């Protein structure tokens, strides 16, 4: 498939993209997270697309997944309204505060902290510590 974006044409291996997206969507909707951190590398590295094409388009693709996942979870009775009303304002507030902080911290430091945090958390989940 050929995608035209801001005056450039890109050849996209849509089969690989769809297959990867499909698998990421199953896992992320099953475990209830967005899937952004997997989708961006898939498009950028797996399909070799430039960042400026990836950021907006991957968000759009993920939105489809989140919307469907939300509906299905609701249908299976997994949605708790009170719990949602607690977390939703916090998530929105976080979205406003984060850009203010972002100017002051280096993304590299954030990522290194994230790596350490994720490893600790995953070892905990696997029961290794």
């Amino acid at each position, binding site marked *: *498939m050929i*995608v035209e*974006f*801001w005056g450039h044409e890109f050849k*996209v291996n*849509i089969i690989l993209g769809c297959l990867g997206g*499909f*698998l*990421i*969507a*199953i896992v*992320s909707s099953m*475990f*209830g*997270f*967005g*899937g*952004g*951190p997997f989708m961006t590398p898939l498009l950028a590295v797996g399909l070799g697309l*430039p*960042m*400026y094409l990836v*950021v*907006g*388009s*991957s*968000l*759009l693709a*993920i*939105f*489809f*997944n*989140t919307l*469907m996942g*939300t509906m299905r*979870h609701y249908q*299976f009775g*997994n*949605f*708790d309204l009170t*719990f*949602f009303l*607690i*977390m*939703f304002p916090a*998530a929105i507030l976080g*979205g406003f505060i*984060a850009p203010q*902080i972002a100017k002051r*911290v280096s993304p590299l430091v954030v*990522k290194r902290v994230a*790596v350490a*945090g*994720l*490893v600790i*958390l*995953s070892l*905990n*989940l*696997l029961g290794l510590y």
Partner: protein
Amino acid sequence: MKRVWVSLVIALSATMFMMWQNGAFAEKAKDAAPAAAKAEQKAETVSASTMPTISIDKTSLSNGGTIAVNGTAPAGKPVYLEVWSDDKVRVSRFDADVDKTTGKRPYILYMTEQMPAYYKIFMPKDKKETLDGIKKEGKNWSVSKTLKDLGADIAYSAPAKAKVDRYQATLMGSIIGSRGDLLPQMDEKENRQRSMQLIKVRFRSPDKVLGADVEVDPAGTYRAVINIREGLAPGKYSIVAVVDKGVQSQPVSFENKIVFPVMYLSNAGTSLNIVWPFILCLGISIFGVLMGAGGGFILNPILVSLWPLPHTVVAGTVMPTVLFSQASGIYNYSKIKFISWKLGTAIGLAMLVGGFIGPKLTELITLDQFKFVFGWILLILASLMFWQTTPGYISKNKKEQAILKEFKKKAEETTKAKEK
């Protein structure tokens, strides 16, 4: 029908007992025609010798607390106290373990909407050692075996009444997202057996459903101070003292009250102080945005680890919270025409199918499997993130980011120019 006969027999024996005790009173009782009324009267009179009695020192609690229970019971018999909440929650369990008799995997989903949100059996203190031994066994404990070993199966009645539905799951059914065919209703005995497995799914560890706190005095009385923990469902709770199958006291009830900021999550069956999840969610979503992601993949495992929340509810509730931030992000990008609709929709349609299948699978896995797979997902994510901090990636990324900024600027300028 059986119950009518039992109550009739009890009523008759009660009448005879009263006749023997006091001729005049017995005559009056005979005159009282309705059998049910007679049965009630009788229960009170007979209790001294065969039926246990129960009384509690308070009728209301504020987000848990202790209740002193005492009463009489036939001398020399162990006394079990069965406590349950009126509030019900949904529990499901997917049975894919190999059946020992047939050697096949049944793939049946057991589900009930009527599991008490709180359930616990308190037993005599001398069972403490046996109970401690079971606790040490760890995750592989079985509810039915445990109850039998402790003699507590005679007290197990409230969850046994929960109607358990079973669905025959098929691979195709799971893909298209159906629970499968509803199988015929189980008989009372099997329903009871299956409800015990669901007890384990709901309450996870033995100390949540069993406690050795009842002091039984051989002379025929008992007392216990039972601790109702924090974070339980509000509403009515019932306690009944059981000494043998069918030999039990009238239920007594108390009220558990919760006050803001403690709130009850009716779908999860847990009360919690909403301040903590709010702060947690705020912190993680800030951190998530900083590292360029939603944060759900950190939030979910922490939520299921910190609070007794079912993983299905956590997954189903965290997902919609990011829906709106994604939508606003898309809106902002689309304003400056920074989205390739063709690419986004093409991959989005594939993800739509995936999103249709995924939520069905959540209820097919156990909490432990949920944590295990999540552990691996996070390890993969950590290595992805680590790779993004390596020098090679950073120098490449710097160029990419510069181009990204340039294009974004161009896009914004074009939009502004058009508006003018």
